[in-house]
């Protein structure tokens, strides 16, 4: 508690209004924003060359401390004055532009995935999948892919968090340094994991060497792609990456279809090319943005421990989320109805259902980006419209806004799910007419498609909650909701796939999503009920 300011009545009015007083106040605020108390102001005054005699002659006060007291009062008054302000309402055009950009940004993230699925349907291959792979090869690629997501998932989140943090402040040099630091660590971890797998396999032969080569090759190359995607995402160059994916598929087409190369070799060459190109582009984009920003102030990163501590919850989230996303596949593919030679044995029927279902997230994610952008924008401006006594009203308003947004989001997800479900059957019908082959012929695929759509719809609820919590800098609360969900996903998926049928692992995904959605909603409700506190904490 600060000491109350004692202002002599004689001078109470006079210096407060004078131009020199306002000038002095301005120069103090420039030097020390915001001063903590009158003693700090006194110290600043003395450092500026003010002494008792001078303040007496200039402002008619007894000493520096008295002037500091007056200035402290004025500082508080200034803050109080600016606390309550009218919000500038952006124009309709600007709003539409911003929201459209946010929607595209949200939806476009799923574009590479949509292109891959489209490529599979038309060309029978994509950048890292092929319709006629042997089960052994498909298993290798699946393991490499899942492992890559689980390994770099944390790094991508950390890059996104720290990268955005600096980019928002126009500190592109620091953003570049942070991004490349995490990419470097990501690669070190990837190589360490690869070395561990290779060494373990040398001793225990978990997989034959022919499989191991593909696991490690896909694992490392896909890791580099995911890291590059993240860098492009924070630099808002998602379309470039989509273009790279198309280019990669084109290269596979040339090598495999025209030059008759082995599909795996073609894919590996193409993925390597995309990775290298992505790396070069990311570096160029950063340099370009740095030059454009022309900000040369801070170029040194904070201590490593601070970097780790400030991004570790995001890192956990990334790891947990990607584990959550793939754990049902692991459960399904590891079900051994008969004796199995490996832990995981790829089942295409299950994967196909999930791949189609995943498309249903495109629209809700776009909507999520828009609604959260809107909500945060509103919050940023709207919080200034409330007095201290109106905190309850403010919190209730945003709680209501959240539930309204979430309701619309659920509706959107449900519509998207229905559309994708029927679209999948329609596309399958067209494909069957054209090629005589049906992707959805298997009952397992149909079953997984249906329930995965429901699961992803529920998942989109907690993804929205995650975005909101991240915006309020509360990632650990999201992790608290995600961990039980992950456990439920794992346990339910494991038991159902073993006791009922391997494809029932999809219910694990659904159950886990439900748990996480409910828990994250509870967390977000708690946050919004104390929004004032969390806004203060986030600042």
């Amino acid at each position, binding site marked *: 508690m600060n000491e109350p300011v004692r202002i002599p009545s004689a001078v109470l009015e006079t210096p407060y209004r004078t131009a020199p007083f306002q000038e002095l106040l301005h120069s103090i605020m420039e030097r020390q924003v915001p001063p903590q108390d009158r003693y700090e102001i006194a110290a600043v005054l003395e450092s500026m060359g003010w002494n008792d005699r001078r303040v007496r002659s200039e402002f008619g006060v007894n000493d520096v401390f008295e002037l500091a007291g007056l200035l402290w009062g004025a500082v508080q008054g200034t803050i109080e004055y600016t606390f309550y302000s009218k919000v500038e309402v952006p124009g309709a055009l600007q709003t539409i532009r911003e929201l459209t950009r946010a929607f595209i940004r949200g939806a476009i993230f799923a574009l590479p995935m949509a292109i891959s699925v489209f490529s599979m349907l038309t060309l029978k291959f994509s950048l890292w999948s092929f319709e006629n792979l*042997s*089960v*052994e*090869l498909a298993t290798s690629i699946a393991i490499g892919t899942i492992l890559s997501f689980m390994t770099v998932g944390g790094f991508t989140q950390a890059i996104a968090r720290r990268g955005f943090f600096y980019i928002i402040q126009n500190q592109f040099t620091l953003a570049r340094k942070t991004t490349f630091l995490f990419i470097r660590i990501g690669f070190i971890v990837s190589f360490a994991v690869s070395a561990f797998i290779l060494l373990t396999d040398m*001793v*225990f*032969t*978990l*997989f*034959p060497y022919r499989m191991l080569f593909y696991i490690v090759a896909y694992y490392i190359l896909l890791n580099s792609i995911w890291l590059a995607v993240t860098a492009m995402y924070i630099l808002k160059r998602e379309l470039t990456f989509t273009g790279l994916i198309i280019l990669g598929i084109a290269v596979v087409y040339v090598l495999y279809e025209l030059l008759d190369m082995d599909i795996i070799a073609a894919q590996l060459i193409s993925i390597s090319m995309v990775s290298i190109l992505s790396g070069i582009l990311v570096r160029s984009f950063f340099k370009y943005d740095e030059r454009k920003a022309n900000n040369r102030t801070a170029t040194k990163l904070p*201590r*490593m*421990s601070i970097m*780790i*501590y400030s991004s*570790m919850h995001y890192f956990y989230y990334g790891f947990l989320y990607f584990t959550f996303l793939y754990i049902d596949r*692991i*459960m399904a593919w*590891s079900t*051994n*109805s*008969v*004796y*199995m*030679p*490996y*832990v995981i044995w790829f089942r295409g029927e299950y994967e196909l259902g999930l791949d189609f279902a995943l498309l249903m997230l495109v629209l809700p994610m776009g909507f999520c980006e828009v609604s959260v952008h809107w909500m945060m924008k509103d919050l940023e401006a709207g919080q200034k419209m409330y007095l201290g006594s109106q905190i309850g009203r403010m919190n209730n308003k945003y709680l209501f806004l959240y539930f309204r947004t979430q309701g619309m989001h659920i509706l959107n997800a449900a519509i998207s799910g229905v559309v994708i479900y029927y679209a999948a059957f329609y596309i399958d019908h067209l494909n069957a007419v054209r090629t005589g082959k049906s992707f959805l012929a298997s009952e397992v695929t149909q079953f997984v498609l249906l329930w995965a759509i429901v699961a992803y719809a529920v998942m989109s609820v907690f993804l929205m909650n995650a975005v909101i919590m991240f915006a309020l800098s509360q990632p650990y609360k999201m992790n608290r909701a995600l961990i039980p969900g992950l456990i439920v996903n794992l346990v339910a998926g*494991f*038991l159902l796939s*073993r*006791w009922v049928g391997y494809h029932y692992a999809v219910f694990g995904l659904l159950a886990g999503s439900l748990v996480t959605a409910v828990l994250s909603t509870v967390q977000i409700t708690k946050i919004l009920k104390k929004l004032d506190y969390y806004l203060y904490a986030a600042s």
Partner: protein
Amino acid sequence: MLVSFMYLLKLTLSYFLLFYFLPALVLPAHQEYRGTLDRWVMAMIHSHFFIILIVHLLALSKLYETLSLYGAAGIAFVLLAARNIRTGAVPLGTRQLLALLDLTDNRVELQNKLMMKLAALKDRGMDALKRSIREFARSPVAWTGIVLCFLISAAIRFRHSIEYSYYAASDPYVHLKWAKAMGGNQLYIDGVYPYGFEAVIAALNKFYLLDPYYIVRFTGPLAGVLVLLMFFYVLRRSFPRDAVFILVAMGVLTASSWLFAGFIWRQMSSLSMEYGMVFFFPGIYFLVQYFRKGHSAALLLAVECMVLTLLIHAYVAVCTGAAYIIVFLLHADQAVRPLKRLLKLSVIFLTAGMVGLMPLALGLISGIEFYESSINYVIDSVNLGAGNQRSWSQLWSYYSEIPFFLVFLLSAGVLGLLTIAKLLFRKGAFRTEGLWRRNAVFLLLGGLFFCLYQASTLGLPVFVPGDRMEFFFLAFAAIIVALALSQLFAFIRWKLVSGSVKLAATCLIVAFFFSSSSSGFALPVGDRYQYEEAAQTYLEIRSKYPHQEWTIISPIEEYPIVLGYGWHTNLWEFVKGISERTGEEIRFPTNYVFLMVEKVPLGMDREVTEADAAEPFPTIEGSRLDDYYRFREKRLVIQAKAYYWAEEYRKTHSYMKVFRDSPNMRVYLITQDGSNPYNLLN
């Protein structure tokens, strides 16, 4: 050979990691049992107890697989580790995080800490080495002899599995099939049977994804060496300062490898009974320790050993039970005083018995019958009517002609007399420290297993086949000979002289063992149920061709080996199909089809002929389908038909090629599109 060695090393490393190194990290150590050997034995018992039970539980609940095994082992590991970690005001997770954050800012500190850890590790290693050297220097001759005995014993047991790819007995093929079935959550595939051994194989397979074929190939001899190590442990703990005594016992046991080939033949192969023996000696030791010192840790270990033998093999369980009863009887004064202790022991052992018999009981309750071959064998082996009754003089003349028995009987007699004499005429340490009990335990156990082993010769009721009791008897015989020598020459106070005399006496005894034998001294040779080439072909196919995209058509022995990695069709079925041509197509929906044909049928000394192939397809009586292969004449016809069909077929079908050829057998390969396979009748 080199590849075999590599796989043996791999299996040994995997085995010790699962059953020793990992559990030893977290298992609490009793003050009395802190030595390296103690920790190894305790880890072996506890980890086997845990692994076998958890595999059974998971398989019964249809949840057994790599993930659930990792999960269960991980939870157990963490729970045990948590007991060892002291908790403070700051939670462990936070402490670790802070340490990590500190280290990221101070890499020098990280290096220093790593160097300190390495230095501490080095110091511990050096201390252990120094201790070992000091111990060795105390009795260099004895220790050299002990090590030699181990090396010779290991070489004898491992020779077959390293030299040959096929198993040395028929049972390993069955254990392989059962272990793989367990891996697929099928517990009672051929009926009710103790599946503890299969649980160990299945655990090694699931934990490391090692091919069970290799596990079964090497686990038998490995178990043989483990039994010897346990035997050594019991001797070392019972006579900690007498390396010469251990050498004498080990020497007698090693020498008996040439005299009693039966137990060596058994220990060359993966057999559940031999595996169960690993826990026989420590069980007895820990029960004695419990009565001597009252450590509950020792009682727990003894009980676990009892349960393990019940879970692994009925005969070992019977032997362990009988041995425990003798130990009880010899410690009756301690067992019943106070009466509460007797009650406690009764409850504990009854509970242990229930746990050990639970898998069998659950199987029977489910309406599944005992494994037919096994139960028939057990029933057929029992002979309550007793064998030929012989007079004492007849028995003496019989046993006195066999040097080993003679030495054993004389040693037992001398030791018995010495024990009684010391008990009667000497007061003090011998009586109060219970040394007479130790002698009596070994004497009575030696007597018991001699009677069980020689039941039919002695005219006693036969409960267990004699050959199964051979190793039990030999082990106690070795101890009794060593004890008799040790106590006979105990009057010599000068250690060097005493040791030299004992060693010289041992050399004479061993020489006497080999002085006469009616059946010679050759080490046993393993049986053969498939050609070496057949096993080698499987290994080549498995390493070169994608899993589950190939089919092998061959006799039944390859079936359990192939299971899970590829597909298998019985040769007789295939031959019947191509011979009888009932109109049904013969297609194999895999990209590669291998047909294994014996040019010289196994067990015969001539090649198949066209005349053999012209014979009608053989018929069998009863339900045993392996009769098609067991009976030579049937095997001959089947192989001949397959051979001449294949030779004819490949002349007109270019997709069928010779994959492997040897004087004994020829393997054909059909390469096709598995989704659109050829009809082999066209």
